[in-house]
C-alpha cells in the first residue's frame, strides 16, 4: 500500500525530473543556437529549468530523509528511476524540433503550475507560484517562434509541421495518471491532469491556428513516464550528464 509520503516523493521526482531533463536538452544548445540572441535565450531557459528541478529534487531528497541531496538524485539514478515526461527527453533535432517540443512542454507546465499554485502542499504551491513567472516567459518565447516558423516560409512551415507530427505521439504521456495522482488529488496536493489537458488543448490550438499549422490527429500514444519507462534517448542523455559523478564519485567543484 502506497503511503501519501511515498506518493509525494514520486510526484516531486516527476516535476523535478521533467525540468532537469528538458534543462539538459536546452544546455546542449549552448553555443549552437541559430543566432547569438537565441543561443542566450535557449540557455537562459535551461538555467530556469535547472533552478526549478533543484527545488523539487531537494524537496524530494528531504522527504526521503536518507540524507541525500538534489545532486545525488540528479547524478546517481539510472534511467528506470527517472520519472520525467517522455516529451522532455526527445532529442533537440533542428531548431524547429526544439521549438515544437518545448512549446508543447511549456504549455503543459504553464497550466500544471497554474493549477498547482493552489496545492495544499506549501512547498509545491510556492514552487508553482515562483516557477510560473519563468515558464510564462518560456511559453511566450516558444509560442512566438511557432507562429514565426509556421506562418513563415514554405520550408519553415513544412518543417515545423513535421516536428509537431513527429512529437505528437508523446503528448498523451503528459496527462497520464496513476494511484500517486489519485492519492494526492484526494489530499488536495496534486491536480487532475484531465483539467490541465483542457487548458493545454486551448493554448495549443490557439497557437497552431495562428501559425497556420494543423493539429496532428490523436493516434497511438507512447506512454511510460509513470513507470519510469523511457525511450532509448534518456540513457544517452544521462551518460553525458552524469559522466563526471559516475567516473569520479563525490568529486566537488
Amino acid at each position, binding site marked *: 500500500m502506497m503511503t501519501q509520503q511515498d506518493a509525494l516523493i514520486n510526484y516531486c521526482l516527476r516535476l523535478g525530473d521533467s525540468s532537469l531533463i528538458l534543462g539538459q536538452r536546452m544546455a546542449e544548445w549552448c553555443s549552437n543556437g541559430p543566432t547569438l*540572441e*537565441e543561443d*542566450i*535565450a535557449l540557455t*537562459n*531557459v535551461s*538555467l*530556469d*529549468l*535547472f*533552478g*526549478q528541478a*533543484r*527545488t523539487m529534487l531537494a524537496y524530494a531528497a528531504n522527504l526521503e530523509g536518507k540524507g541525500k541531496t538534489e545532486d545525488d538524485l540528479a547524478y546517481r539514478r539510472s534511467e528506470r528511476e527517472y520519472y520525467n515526461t517522455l516529451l522532455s527527453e526527445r532529442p533537440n533535432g533542428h531548431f524547429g524540433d526544439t521549438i515544437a517540443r518545448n512549446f508543447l512542454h511549456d504549455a503543459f507546465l*504553464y497550466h500544471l503550475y497554474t493549477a498547482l499554485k493552489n496545492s495544499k502542499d*506549501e*512547498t509545491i*504551491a*510556492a*514552487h508553482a*507560484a*515562483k*516557477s510560473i*513567472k*519563468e515558464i*510564462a*516567459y518560456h*511559453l*511566450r*518565447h516558444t*509560442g*512566438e517562434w511557432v*507562429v514565426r516558423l509556421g506562418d513563415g516560409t514554405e520550408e519553415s512551415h513544412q518543417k515545423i509541421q513535421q516536428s509537431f507530427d513527429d512529437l505528437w505521439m508523446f503528448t498523451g504521456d503528459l496527462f497520464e495518471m496513476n494511484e500517486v495522482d489519485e492519492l494526492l488529488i484526494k489530499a488536495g496536493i496534486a491536480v487532475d491532469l484531465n483539467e490541465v489537458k483542457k487548458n493545454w488543448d486551448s*493554448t495549443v490550438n*490557439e*497557437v497552431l491556428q*495562428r501559425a497556420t499549422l494543423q493539429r496532428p490527429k490523436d493516434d497511438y500514444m507512447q506512454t511510460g513516464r509513470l513507470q519510469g519507462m523511457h525511450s532509448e534517448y534518456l540513457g544517452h542523455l544521462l551518460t553525458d550528464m552524469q559522466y563526471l559523478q559516475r567516473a569520479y564519485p563525490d568529486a566537488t567543484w
Partner: protein
Amino acid sequence: MNLKEKYTEQEVWDMIAQIPDPEIPVITIEELGVLRKVEVLPEKVVVTITPTYTGCPAMKMFEDDIIKTLHDNGIENVEIKMVYTPAWTTDWMSEAAMQKLKDYGIAPPVKGTQDKGVLFGSAPKEVQCPQCGSKNTELKSQFGSTACKALYQCKDCLEPFDYFKCI
C-alpha cells in the same frame, strides 16, 4: 555565548544589507529585495533570502557573502533559509535602486507592466534607453545576459542595452 543578548536583529540586518549583487554590483541585496528576514536566536542567526529566479547563479554567492560577512563580524553560527513565497517581484525594488540601475546602464523594470496575456503578450512599450533617454527602443530578445534581464536596442542612439525584466 547568547547571540540574542549581544545583537539585535536590526544590527545583524545592517551588517549584511549592503552586500552587493555580484552581477549588478551597484545594487544591494536589501534594495533588490532578496534579503527578507533576519532572526537572532540564542545559538544562531537565521537569514531568510528569496531567489530572483529559481536558477539564478548569484544566489550561491549571496549565501557565501552573507555567511562570510557575519563571520567577519564575529557571528559564527549562521543558517541561510531560502523561501519561495511570496515569490520575488521587481515591484519590491526601491526608486533609489531603480535610479542606480539606470545610472549603471541597465533600464529599470517598468512597474505595473507585467504582461496580462501569456501568449503574444506585448513587451512593455516605454522602455527608456539608459544611454540617451529616448523612448524609441525595441525589444531584441526576451532573454538577456542574465536570467533577470532582456535585451533591447535604442533606435535613436542605436546602443543595445539590458532591460531589467518585470516579473
